[in-house]
């Protein structure tokens, strides 16, 4: 029996405005795994996750991460990737650490920082669901819109899962089952994922050293 870490990156049980996450968590909780599986709610910044792995001192045979990303694919599509790592300059890693220590949750930063601190086993599978650009806004805050004129408002939560979202949960759960129980050998649809494929740091929150200074035109 192998020891597997299954991480829901950014999952947070109390955000129920969009029920896909809790539904998925419930589904994964109910699975009888073939191996010893530690299901982890990775609702933490990457440095905290790295430190948790270091502190646990568990030598996992395989890690499977589930995360929402934007890589330009079809919204709602689920892609299984195998992390292959790669090389980054020191400052490129450092810029991701700058973000990470602030508590920003990012699977790309987690992959890079985890690799730098050598927490990943040889086999790391990432199951990604493509979400729209303003996913969080639409999913979480849709219900929080306050109509200033009417005073009407709605509260978070208790929205039943839609059939489309249910299908996404089904797909993620199916892929996860194979990824956890069999691993890379059992997955014919794995897409390679290396540092070259990662999204650049978000323009609104990336951190910078002196190289990022922009020089513009003189004052007239």
């Amino acid at each position, binding site marked *: 029996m192998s020891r597997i870490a299954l991480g829901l990156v950014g999952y947070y049980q109390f955000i129920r405005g969009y029920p896909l996450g809790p539904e998925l968590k419930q589904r994964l909780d109910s699975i009888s795994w073939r191996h010893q599986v530690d299901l982890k709610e990775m609702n933490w910044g990457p440095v905290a996750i790295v430190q948790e792995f270091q502190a646990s001192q568990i030598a996992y045979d395989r890690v499977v991460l589930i995360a929402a990303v934007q890589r330009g694919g079809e919204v709602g599509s689920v892609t299984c990737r195998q992390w292959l790592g790669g090389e980054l300059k020191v400052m490129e890693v450092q810029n991701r650490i700058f973000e990470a220590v*602030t508590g920003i949750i990012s699977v790309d930063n987690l992959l890079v920082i985890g690799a730098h601190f050598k927490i990943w086993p040889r086999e790391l599978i990432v199951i990604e669901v493509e979400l729209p650009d303003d996913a969080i806004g639409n999913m979480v805050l849709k219900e929080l819109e306050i109509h200033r004129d009417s005073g009407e408002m709605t509260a978070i939560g208790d929205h039943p899962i839609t059939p489309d979202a249910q299908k996404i949960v089904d797909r993620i759960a199916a892929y996860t089952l194979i990824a956890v129980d069999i691993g890379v050998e059992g997955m014919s649809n794995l897409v390679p994922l290396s540092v070259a494929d990662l999204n650049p740091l978000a323009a609104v929150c990336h951190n910078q050293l002196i190289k990022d*200074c922009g020089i513009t035109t003189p004052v007239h």
Partner: protein
Amino acid sequence: MCFENLPIEFDENGKAHLKPGVPNPYSYNTQTVEQRDAYLTDIARKNGQLNDIDFDPVTRVAGALAFHSTVNLKDRKVVDTASMATLFRGYEVILRGRDPRDAAFISSRACGVCGGVHATTSALAIEMALGIKPPPLGIVVRNLLLSCEYLYDNPLHLFILAGPDFSEALIRETNPEIWQKAERAPSKFAAVHGYKTIGAIMTDLNPLTGRLYLEALEMTRVAREAYVLLGGKYPHPETIIPGGVTTTITTNTMTEFYLKLVPFFDYAKRCVAIWDDVYDFMYEANPQYRHLGEIPPTMVDFGQWDHEDHYDATYANCNAWGEKRWSTPGAMVNGKLVTTRLTDINVGFEEFVEHSYYEPWEEYPFKTDPSGNPISPNHPWNKTTIPRPGKQNWKERYSWSCTPTWDRKTFEAGAYARVYMSALAQKLPPSNYFASTGKSLVLNIAKDKLPEMRLEWHVPDVWNAFERNRARAYAVAFNLMVTLENWVRAQDLIKRGEKRVATPFEIPKTGQHIGVGMWGAGRGFLAHWCVIEKGVLANYQISTPSTVNACPRTPWGEPGPYERAVLNTPIIETNFKDEKDFKGIDILRALRSFDPCMPCTTHTMVEGTDRVVTREVTTCACGL
């Protein structure tokens, strides 16, 4: 008499009132676009070769701060600046109309680094509004939680966020002549930190590989683990509520907590020794550094860490319990402490939106605070947050930050403010671990591997970027000893049989109730104001340290602290030929000395609508 600009005076009982005969007591002059334009034209005329340099983003903490500066490279001067918060936070809008019990949980998300302080500040505001006094153990545990956040936050800034600016890698790149001196310069405190030269310290400040860098990462983990022992979870604890905390505290918990504190005894000593060495060396290497980020020390802080024998959550008694806090509240103008009363700080506080993407508001529901002291139409209890996204224009509106002022002055906030105020005020409650002398703050740091040590932070003769960072290093030691003081108090309470950590309460379904949580974040000044009507939040206002520091100009044209600090910053960088390879390290050091932080969960307005949406800035699965 602490107010110079607001027309407020005091009677013999210390109660404030408006000066008689002032027709429009809160009116102010507004600098016109034409006046600002004329100013900029004049700068351009007097300075032949100018470059606009944008730093976007500046902050290493959760982004969303842009900084615009105009630099005369030939004369090595900064001639114009504009600080800009690039994202709308929106929490004030989100919280409107919600159950007051939600406020702590939602406002906590204002920051991915220090959510606990927002939760606590929110709890304090609700406590005051609804008259909920926590039990003594609840107050002390809340203090311990706050300390853990500071023990996480301040080393993080010193070594992970600002530290690289003083590392070998950067000094070599920007000022090779200083690196040459550093390699040979002996350190003064080698016996404490173990480094024989300044160069050796700088090498270990290198990002990713430096020993000091990696050690700080480890220490942030220890602080978080200590937090979790009492708070259950970090950074967004669900255990902080109005009326106390919801955690179970036992002697075992306290013992485990103490074990987490022990490594900080030596770490605090080393923090101070390292940064004393680095900044003293930098001054010697180039005395021009004394002007880096220099502005007169004008700052406001609410003090933190309530004393369990005094805190009663009432506004009526807030001056009494405020002055008994383990760091002293205060407003300081040009280095002079003008008040330590929380009501004065609250009454003198206003927010302006003339240079921000917000609409002005019409309502003026509260002419006075609950004690009858006059408050401005621009006071947060009277403010309505009405976002108005628009085109960036440095002469008009350019920031999502509003402009907070105290007595019509922009002011600084920071970890250093609690050190500074506490040192000047001489009002700290008696403690074996720290004392205020009026000119300094004395800290007795307990023995671990290093012997017991007496540290003393002295009021500096100049207030600049390095002194901000230096005081922040002493703040680590101050936090630690306040933690120890409160740990001892918690133990005493438990021995006396105290178990209660929270006071139950009900949300009244009728009436109007107002409160303010006056607290602090790792970065200083933090306040939440609430108005509760018919059981829901009718208004909620948040003022954060980065809003205070990163604010745009006042309506009358006074720049905010970042803007002023950078205006005074000389360009000391040497390793450049022209604007193409100019790095701007001095400007960035000046800005980072404020420990800038903007929220990581950010919100944007959809153009042309009233709709607030969260804009995810990372690839996470929060929406799953």
